[in-house]
């Protein structure tokens, strides 16, 4: 009895730290980051970085001196990147990564996962607000403003499949949608979810919070070394989880590793393609876009679904 409990604990820890969460997730996150950069470079007519580039970046940052600027709360400054990465890794436990069933699951874990994903954004916002540098502070206000604008539509867009599956548990929704391509019945929801993911990852056109030409590097301007590396890892993790969720919900599920990679990579390709075509939107335009069109689209989708389900029953 005791030995099985211990075995379970060991398995859990392995799941959390090595596979499918933790290490494996980080590696895939870095790989996806490379694919993102490489594809973007190719679309821009460039050669692009080498395959180990994100890894080298992270290792180098980890080895660098970390300067804690004067006047900041040191604990927050050091702790926030750790929280951000931990949030992302925890979220991974509830998601069908690499085509395997989620390591853990309970009714309502969808909501928890989404909020764990937002933790990264909130941590970045706090990290920016924590420093005295004004670029960071402006970056932080923009990060948080943007969070409030895309979060609701993104959430609603992911709840569409949940309502269709009549479950709030990611595992069950994924199982439900693995037999159906929900993108066909809920195209608007899919669209909002993909664009919402772009907002979440702060890639163009939603990169106002880190708009290089206006506010240097946004909330992370003051970070050097380790903090920056951890935030970068967290971002890689978020890419993978976000892509997984959308593929699992809308693209006919990710029942096995092959399907997982094919679908998430296809989605990544679409996101990069969109990104290379876009001009950065101003923060007020971002907010307007989401609340005027994003929410509206999702609500139309919901209405259609409710009517459809009513007619069916």
């Amino acid at each position, binding site marked *: 009895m005791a030995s099985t409990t211990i075995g379970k604990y060991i398995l859990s820890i392995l799941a959390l730290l090595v596979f499918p969460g933790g290490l494996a997730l980080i590696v895939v996150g870095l790989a996806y980051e490379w694919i993102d950069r490489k594809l973007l470079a190719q679309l821009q007519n460039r050669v692009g970085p080498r395959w180990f580039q994100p890894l080298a970046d992270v290792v180098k940052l980890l080895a660098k001196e970390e300067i804690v600027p004067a006047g900041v709360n040191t604990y927050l400054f050091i702790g926030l990147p750790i929280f951000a990465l931990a949030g992302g890794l925890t979220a991974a436990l509830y998601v069908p990564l690499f085509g395997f069933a989620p390591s853990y699951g309970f009714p309502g874990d969808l909501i928890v996962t989404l909020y764990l994903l937002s933790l990264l954004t909130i941590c970045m916002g706090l990290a920016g607000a924590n420093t005295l540098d004004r670029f960071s502070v*402006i970056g932080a206000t923009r990060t948080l*403003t943007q969070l409030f604008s895309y979060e609701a539509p993104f959430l609603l867009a992911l709840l569409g499949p949940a309502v269709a599956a009549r479950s709030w548990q990611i595992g069950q929704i994924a199982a439900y949608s693995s037999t159906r391509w929900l993108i066909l019945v809920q195209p608007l929801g899919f669209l909002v979810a993909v664009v919402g993911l772009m907002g979440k990852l702060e890639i163009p056109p939603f990169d*106002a919070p880190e708009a290089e030409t*206006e*506010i240097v590097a946004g909330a992370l301007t003051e970070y050097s070394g380790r903090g920056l590396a951890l935030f970068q890892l967290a971002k890689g993790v978020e890419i993978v989880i976000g892509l997984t969720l959308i593929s699992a919900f809308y693209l006919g599920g990710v029942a096995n590793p092959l399907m997982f990679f094919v679908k998430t990579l296809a989605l990544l390709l679409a996101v990069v393609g969109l990104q290379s075509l876009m*001009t*950065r*939107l101003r*923060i*007020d335009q971002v907010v307007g876009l989401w609340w005027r069109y994003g929410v509206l689209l999702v609500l139309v989708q919901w209405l259609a679904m409710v009517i459809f389900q009513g007619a069916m029953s």
Partner: protein
Amino acid sequence: METSEKKELFTIPIGPQHPALKEPGSFRFTVDGEIVTSAEVRLGYAHRGIEKGAEGRSWVQSLYLLERVCGICSHVHATAFSLGVEQLAGVTAPPRAQAIRELVAELERVHSHMLWLGVAAHEAGFDTLFMYSWRDRETIMDILEGLTGNRVNYSANLLGGVKCDVGDPQRDTILKGIDMLEERTRHYLDVVTNDAVFLQRTHGVGTMTADQAELLGTVGPTARASGLGKDVRVDAPYAAYADFPVKIVTAEAGDLEARFQVRLRELFESYRLIREILDHLPPGELTARMPRRIKPAEAVSRVEAPRGELFYFLKSNGTDMPERVNVRTPTICNMTSVVKMVVGHQLADVPMILVGIDPCFSCNDRMVVVERKQHEAQGWTWEQLRRYGIDYYRQIHS
């Protein structure tokens, strides 16, 4: 300028080292949330003392020094200086030299506008356009290199003429390159006129009426985008512009979109001129004889740089060195307009408006004006800013 920074938390300094600026110029924008309430420019980070430096160098040395006032529009500086010195000495460069000066000037305009298009797209966060326009710009850099031997700071001018001739092989390369670029430019014009996302960042942003543009003394494409027909190439033709005249390109709207269109449409005019010059290049010598010492005299020389009117005042005193060289660059004229235009705009629009005039700080190295409107926005606390942000967005959504 460092003393009050702690207090003015929401004064945003941009520069002198800032990704939006490839050159050093320092800006301080006071913002209300995201809205700019005042703007201040402090230049001089690139102030090298060239005007004084020229007084201690010979005329020929000064030519090379002045060419390095600015690396982007080096040829127009050298042309303005050469034309001025020739005027002082009473020498006229041969027609072939004048035509080659115009040829290089137009090639340089193409290079400068392409460069600007890329930088402007980069400011807008549209890196794909930046990459594409700079890739195509390499064509013009190759042409310039083939013609003069250097990609930047080409030193095509000599006092009394030019140093490089245009032969048949160069002619063919240029024509081939121009054909390719013309097609690409048509595509870019289409993008800046029709791309909806891009227009969101340019349409109706930084608008300046013709009256304002005239009052603020703007020059070049910035003035022409507001409907002012100011162009030295037309008003006071120099070099060979009388023989190969240019048609002036203007737009009425006066916003960023118009500035994009004016610059891109000017490119077609440049392509036409380049072809025409290559077809009717006058034969003859490349240089006229220049005296080493120049009798005491004064001269004014005006040239249309890619950014607008470039003004040189020269004075000689009978020695082989200038007595006084005064350079007035186009950016200094346009900078005042930026400081006025940005007030009331979003912080996110500031780099775009700034880049809309195609600023060139190394040309300029001077400082401008303080504009403070509404209240003195110093000493905003975090709480005040937060309040403001909330109210601002509440207004938008209600």
